[in-house]
């Protein structure tokens, strides 16, 4: 089930009613767990078994880990969890990638190779990372294993964040699931407004931008350099609004159910350096890679050379996580390389321990020439790298770059709705830098809130593009 399908509000209202009707925590969690499995099975019931398998393995591994005393035993148990989860990911997501990559080698040896017919289970990248973070945290003794199986099963499969995050830590969600939340009108309303904002971002902005992006990226050499540039900026908007829209709906839904999720985006296109970008983009994934890849490799504690190595490895893995194609790996490499190069420039740690938490008093919002140049440079790197992220292969990416860099001839296409959506993106980011950003949350008591709410609901019904467009991050 997808958040922007008509069936979802009906399903959600039903679950909302059931959940708030009961005071018993255990009953509540069972209801939510069943609802979550139904949500997942709506896509394909056969893969619920995979989700359950991952849940079962990590529940029992964590309990054993807590009781085990010897380091060897504990490492062995952790390995079971790692092998089970990463093994599933490796098979479903990367088997064909490795087969195709090694095909030439196989052919040279006179061996044939054939791609496997594998369906990528929706959300596998997210829920395996979520369960892995739990077992690793238990191994590190940062969290105690959960007692009730239903609580852990719900933690893994909780439908608002099951298929595309945010990746929620055990320490953040399990304590909340252990008790029945108090109903708060303010939080309920805030959740509704966040869901509405997310739907507007996805349906009215991301999908409109996607209409242009799909056409231009299918054949970039047909279009002029100007059009390709516009399409690349449009893609930057599409992927941001698609993913942050999904996240808003997820966080809003959780709020309405009484739970708090961490933020996942903080206006990344306001970043004035690539380091800053990764403190604002997909923050829960950034911190996952920081805590479970970058820091175990040594982080920034060692020499500059080793720090550079750690950065590159982390970003390569991040690229690979996004998709089983060399273009994603290259995208990760470019980000890693720029992060490495920009090491001497920034005095702050490259991947902060406080991702997402910002000392607002310390930040000056004045736009200095240096900040502007930093922003411009960051956006250029991010946009050029997005070409690789979106292109279906290196050939398409090269054709895009040729049109962009050498002012290629072709059709100059200026779709007004996509351009208007980009205008909205610039406006929204500009407002976010001002005090007006408080108004964007539409506080319940302010006079303009009901007007804006009605306008958004009508716009969703009237102006949604034709056809259904899945969330971009579902493919990861």
């Amino acid at each position, binding site marked *: 089930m997808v958040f922007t399908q008509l069936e979802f509000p009906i399903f959600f209202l039903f679950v909302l009613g059931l959940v708030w009707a009961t005071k018993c925590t255990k009953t509540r969690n069972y209801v939510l767990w069943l609802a979550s499995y139904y949500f997942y099975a709506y896509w394909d019931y056969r893969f619920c078994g995979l989700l359950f398998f991952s849940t079962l393995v990590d529940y029992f591994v964590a309990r054993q880990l807590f009781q085990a005393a010897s380091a060897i035993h504990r490492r062995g148990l952790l390995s079971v969890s790692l092998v089970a989860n990463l093994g599933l990911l490796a098979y479903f997501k990367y088997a064909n990638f490795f087969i195709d990559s090694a095909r030439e080698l196989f052919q040279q040896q006179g061996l044939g190779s054939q791609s496997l017919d594998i369906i990528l289970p929706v959300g596998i990248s997210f829920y395996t990372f979520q369960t892995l973070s739990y077992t690793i945290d238990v191994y590190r003794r940062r969290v105690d294993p959960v007692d009730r199986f239903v609580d852990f099963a719900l933690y893994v499969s909780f439908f608002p964040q099951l298929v595309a995050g945010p990746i929620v830590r055990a320490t953040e969600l399990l304590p909340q699931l252990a008790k029945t939340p108090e109903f708060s009108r303010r939080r309920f309303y805030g959740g509704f407004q966040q869901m509405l904002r997310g739907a507007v971002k996805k349906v009215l902005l991301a999908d409109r931008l996607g209409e242009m992006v799909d056409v231009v990226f*299918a*054949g*970039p050499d047909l279009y002029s350099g100007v059009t390709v540039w516009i399409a690349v900026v449009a893609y930057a908007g599409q992927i941001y609004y698609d993913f942050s829209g999904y996240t808003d709906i997820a966080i809003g839904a959780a709020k309405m159910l009484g739970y708090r999720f961490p933020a996942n985006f903080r206006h990344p296109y306001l970043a004035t350096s690539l380091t800053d970008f990764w403190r604002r983009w997909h923050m829960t994934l950034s911190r996952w890679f920081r805590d479970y890849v970058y820091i175990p490799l040594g982080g920034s504690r060692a020499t500059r050379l080793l720090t550079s190595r750690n950065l590159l490895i982390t970003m390569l893995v991040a690229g690979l996580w996004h998709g089983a194609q060399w273009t994603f790996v290259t995208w990760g490499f470019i980000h890693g390389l720029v992060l490495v190069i920009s090491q001497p420039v920034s005095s702050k740690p490259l991947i902060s321990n406080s991702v997402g938490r910002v000392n607002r008093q310390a930040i000056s919002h004045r736009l200095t020439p240096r900040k502007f140049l930093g922003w411009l440079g960051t956006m250029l790197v991010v946009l050029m790298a997005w070409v690789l992220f979106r292109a279906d292969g290196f050939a398409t990416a090269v054709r895009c770059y040729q049109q962009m860099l050498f002012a290629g001839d072709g059709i100059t296409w200026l779709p007004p709705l996509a351009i208007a959506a980009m205008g909205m993106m610039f406006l929204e980011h500009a407002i976010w830098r001002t005090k007006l950003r408080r108004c964007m949350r539409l506080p319940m008591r302010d006079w303009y809130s009901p*007007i804006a709410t009605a306008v958004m609901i009508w716009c969703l*019904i*009237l102006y949604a593009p034709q056809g259904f467009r899945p969330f971009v991050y579902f493919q990861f």
Partner: protein
Amino acid sequence: MVLRWLFGMLIGTAVIGVTSPLFVRSYVPSQQNRGTETLRSNVNYRWRSEGYATTRVGPMGMPGKTVIHSVRANAPGVSRDETEYSVRLALWGDSQAEGVCVEDPSKIFAQTEALLGRGCDVFPLARSGDDLNDWLVQIKFAEQSLQVDFHVFLITQLSDLAVSVRKNAPEDPRKGSLNEYLASTLPAFAIESARNLLTNQRDGTRRKLRFQLGPVSKRSQDFVGESSGGAAANTRFSRAVELLDSSATKPVVLVYAPMVPHISGGKAKWGDSSQAGFEVLHGLADEAGFYVLDLREDFRDAARSGSWCHGFHNGQIGSGHLNHHGNSLIAKRVTELVAKVVGEMRGTK
């Protein structure tokens, strides 16, 4: 608080109501004209997707044509001199010929009239979705009531020449009158909202909610390819040409203007998959004494010079409906042919 919210939401709805004409198409009740249902006369019809235009609907539901320029010899008080250089064309086709996605002066009929000159009329009798079966029932009206001198058929796909015994199942009259009532009573944005919620936007079928578990098997759409040549095409087009020949007593012009070239899947496709079928049709039309105009090379030349004849910035350039430039090429070719034929006719007199 509740009252404040209700009031605020009403204001928000009013904001949408006031601004929606910029983005939402019209829903105009239809009326009976010339033996068929057409748009109601003397209304403005808005089109807001894939093209952006407001069409003034003229007499007999003709989109964009509000003035008749020519006079006929049998009109009272008319001298022969006034009628000598006037010519009347009936323009048939589907939504491509109807042209509601472009402003009135850019429509095929208007551009043709402008080129033909003072005192000439082109009657836009095409409606979206029309095909041969719809044209045949109106030809007599066009010749007797409108006194047309030529029939111009804009053929954008050869399937428009398919003859069916019974085109569609007759519509439930109760549904038709309900639609008319809604179109004349409710604002367009309310109708559009209801349509978006209740129907699938792609094909207009009723939306069905699914709550059963997946996976859902995807039925592949059987693509019925456009006509190929051969005996089947011969039979199909023979019948069409025969029916046109027997229905029309005035000269017939077939304007073949398929979507060539077009952009699909990131590639520009320059060929015409209906080439073989068109050759069969061309041969049969020549035998019947029809005039045939082939616009394909004109469209290709235009695209090569950067002016694609199909598509709009708010749709996709190189795909979709004819735009101003495409219409102008058709108008130019039709005008040249009509002027030549009329000149020949006058020369033989």
